[in-house]
C-alpha cells in the first residue's frame, strides 16, 4: 500500500484504532464509576457515557470502511490517474464515488425501512446480510465484507459470531471489531458469559500501553491473539506460541517475549510480533506433561491465524512454539493443509506430535504445503533445560531435539553457576542472552 491513497488509508486506520482504544478506556472508566457512584447524578453520567460510546462505535466503523475504500478503490483511481489511463480512471472514479456516497445517515434510513422498497423511493431497505457457515473460505468472507456498508457490517458481525477472529476480514477490521467487543465486555463485566476479568482487564491495559497493537482475535472466554503492529506492512512476522500457564491475563509478559524474538530476528525493526493466546494452555507442568488435547484443540486456530497473515501480505512468516506451545505448533503443522510459515522453530519443546519432521507441512507464498525438513524446521534448547527431555516419554511425539527427528538442531549452554539452573527454561527471552542471540540467528536466516 503506497501513494496518496495508501497514506490516507493508513491515516484513517490509525484514527480508527486510536478511537477504538479510547472506547476501551472509556468502558473501563464507566464500569469503575458505577462501582463507586450511584444515584440520579451517576445515572445521568452513565447515560451520557453510553451515548458517547455508541457514537465512537459508529465513527470507528465509518473509518474502517473508509480506510478500505481508500486502499482499494482510491488506490485504483490514483494508479489510473498516474498512468494516464482515461478508461480505467473513469471506471475507478465511478467505483470510488459509489463507495464514498455510503453515509451513515443514508444507511440508517435504509436500515429503518421495513419490507420492499416503495415505488419511486430514493433508497430501499438494506439487503439482509448473509450468514456464512463455519467452513466458508476466507476469500468469500473477504469479498462479502468488502461489499457491505458500515451498518450492514454491524449486522453481519452479529449474524456470524466469531467471524472477526478468523481469516477473511482485513486486519484493521478485525482489530476494530475486537476492540468494540472488549469495550462491551468491560462496560458490563457482570453480563452473561463474560470472560475472566483478569484477562479482559490485562488486555485493556496492554492496549493502553501499546496503542499500535492489533487485536486479531478475542473470544468470550478471553482467549485471543495480538500483534504489536501491522503484519501486512512488515518484512517479517514472528508468531509466538507460548506454553504452560499462558493466557490473556499475562498478555504483557507474553507480548514482551514475542517482541524480544522479533528484535533478535530483525535488528532493523522490520518485524511484527504476533502473540497467540487463543488457546487453553495447561495451567501447570503436570497437566502439560500428559495433555495433548489442548494443543490439538487450538491447532486449527493457529493454522487459520497463519493463513490470515499470509493473506494480509506479510513478508516472511516464522512460528516459534515455546515449551507446550511447541506441541501446539507441531499439531498445527501436522494438519493436512499444514501451516502457512516459512520457518518453524521448536523452542524448548517437549514434543512435536509427530515422529519425523517430514510429517509436518509448511507452506510459503505459493500456499503449497511441503514436508518439513532441516531447512524449514529448527529446534533449540538450553543444554540443562529439563523440559525438552520430557520428549523421551513420547507422549507428545518425537522430541524436536532428537537427532533422528530431522530438524536443524541448536543446543545452547548459558549456565555458569548453580543458580543459573533455576532459569534454564525461562531465560530464552532475556535481552543479550546466549539463547536469544542464537534464536535471532535462526530466525534471521532465510530458509
Amino acid at each position: 500500500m503506497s501513494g496518496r491513497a495508501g497514506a490516507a488509508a493508513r491515516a484513517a486506520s490509525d484514527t480508527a484504532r486510536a478511537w477504538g482504544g479510547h472506547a476501551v478506556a472509556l468502558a473501563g472508566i464507566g464500569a469503575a464509576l458505577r462501582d463507586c457512584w450511584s444515584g440520579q447524578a451517576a445515572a445521568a453520567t452513565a447515560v451520557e457515557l453510553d451515548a458517547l460510546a455508541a457514537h465512537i462505535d459508529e465513527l470507528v466503523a465509518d473509518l474502517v470502511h473508509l480506510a478500505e475504500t481508500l486502499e482499494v478503490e482510491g488506490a485504483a483511481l490514483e494508479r489510473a490517474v498516474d498512468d494516464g489511463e482515461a478508461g480505467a480512471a473513469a471506471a475507478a472514479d465511478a467505483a470510488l464515488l459509489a463507495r464514498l456516497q455510503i453515509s451513515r445517515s443514508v444507511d440508517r434510513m435504509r436500515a429503518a425501512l421495513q419490507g420492499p422498497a416503495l415505488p419511486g423511493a430514493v433508497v430501499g431497505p438494506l439487503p439482509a446480510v448473509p450468514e456464512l457457515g463455519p467452513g466458508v473460505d476466507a476469500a468469500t468472507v473477504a469479498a462479502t465484507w468488502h461489499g457491505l456498508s458500515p451498518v450492514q457490517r454491524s449486522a453481519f458481525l452479529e449474524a456470524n459470531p466469531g467471524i472477526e477472529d478468523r481469516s477473511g476480514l482485513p486486519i484493521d477490521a478485525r482489530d476494530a471489531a475486537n476492540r468494540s467487543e472488549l469495550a462491551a465486555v468491560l462496560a458490563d463485566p457482570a453480563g452473561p458469559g463474560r470472560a475472566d476479568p483478569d484477562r479482559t482487564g490485562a488486555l485493556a491495559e496492554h492496549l493502553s500501553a501499546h496503542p499500535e497493537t492489533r487485536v486479531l482475535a478475542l473470544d468470550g472466554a478471553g482467549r485471543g491473539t495480538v500483534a504489536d503492529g501491522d503484519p501486512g506492512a512488515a518484512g517479517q512476522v514472528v508468531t509466538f506460541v507460548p506454553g504452560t500457564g499462558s493466557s490473556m491475563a499475562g498478555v504483557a509478559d507474553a507480548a514482551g517475549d514475542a517482541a524480544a524474538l522479533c528484535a533478535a530476528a530483525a535488528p532493523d525493526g522490520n518485524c511484527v510480533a504476533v502473540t497467540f493466546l487463543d488457546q487453553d494452555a495447561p495451567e501447570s507442568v503436570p497437566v502439560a506433561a500428559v495433555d495433548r488435547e489442548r494443543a490439538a484443540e487450538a491447532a486449527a486456530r493457529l493454522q487459520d491465524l497463519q493463513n490470515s497473515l499470509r493473506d494480509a501480505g506479510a513478508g516472511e512468516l516464522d512460528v516459534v512454539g515455546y515449551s507446550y506451545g511447541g506441541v501446539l505448533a507441531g499439531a498445527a503443522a501436522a494438519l493436512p493443509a499444514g501451516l502457512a510459515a516459512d520457518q518453524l522453530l521448536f523452542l524448548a519443546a517437549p514434543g512435536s506430535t509427530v515422529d519425523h519432521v517430514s510429517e509436518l507441512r509448511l507452506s510459503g507464498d505459493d500456499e503449497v504445503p511441503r514436508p518439513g525438513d532441516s531447512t524449514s524446521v529448527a529446534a533449540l534448547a538450553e543444554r540443562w533445560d529439563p523440559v525438552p527431555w520430557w520428549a523421551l516419554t513420547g507422549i507428545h511425539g518425537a522430541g524436536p531435539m532428537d537427532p533422528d527427528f530431522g530438524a536443524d538442531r541448536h543446543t545452547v549452554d548459558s549456565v555458569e553457576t548453580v543458580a543459573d539452573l533455576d532459569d534454564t527454561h525461562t531465560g530464552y527471552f532475556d535481552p543479550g542472552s546466549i539463547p536469544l542471540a542464537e534464536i535471532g540467528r535462526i530466525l534471521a536466516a532465510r530458509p
Partner: protein
Amino acid sequence: MKGIAVNVHLDPSCLDPQLDRLAALAGATAPARAAGPQGPGLGPIHEILGALATVSPVRRRMDELAAACAAYASGAALAGRAADLDADLTWLHRELQQVAAAAVHRARTLGVIDAERAADLAAVAGAAA
C-alpha cells in the same frame, strides 16, 4: 414508609481517580493537528480556509488524494468526506470533554445532593419502621 429504595452511593476515594482518568482521556482525544491543505485543485476558498485552519492527519491525507483526483467526481467527494470526518472528530472530542466536565460537576454538586437526600430518606424510613 417501608420499602423506600435508597440506592445512592458515593465514594470519593474511588470516584476521584476515575474522574481524573475521564478528564485525561478527554484531553487525549484531541486530534493531532497539522497545517491545512495547500495543494492545487482545491479551489481558492478551500486554500484560504486551509491556510487559516489546522486539520487532522486523516483529513490532510484525504485532501492530498482529493487534489490528485481533482479532475474526477471522486475528488470533490473525497474532500467533502474528509471535511465531514474532521468535523466528526472535533465534535466527538468536544463532547467527551463536556461529558467529563459534567461528570465532575455532578459528582461535586448533584452527587452530594443525592447522598444527602438518600440519608434523609433513610432516616425517615428508619423512624417509620
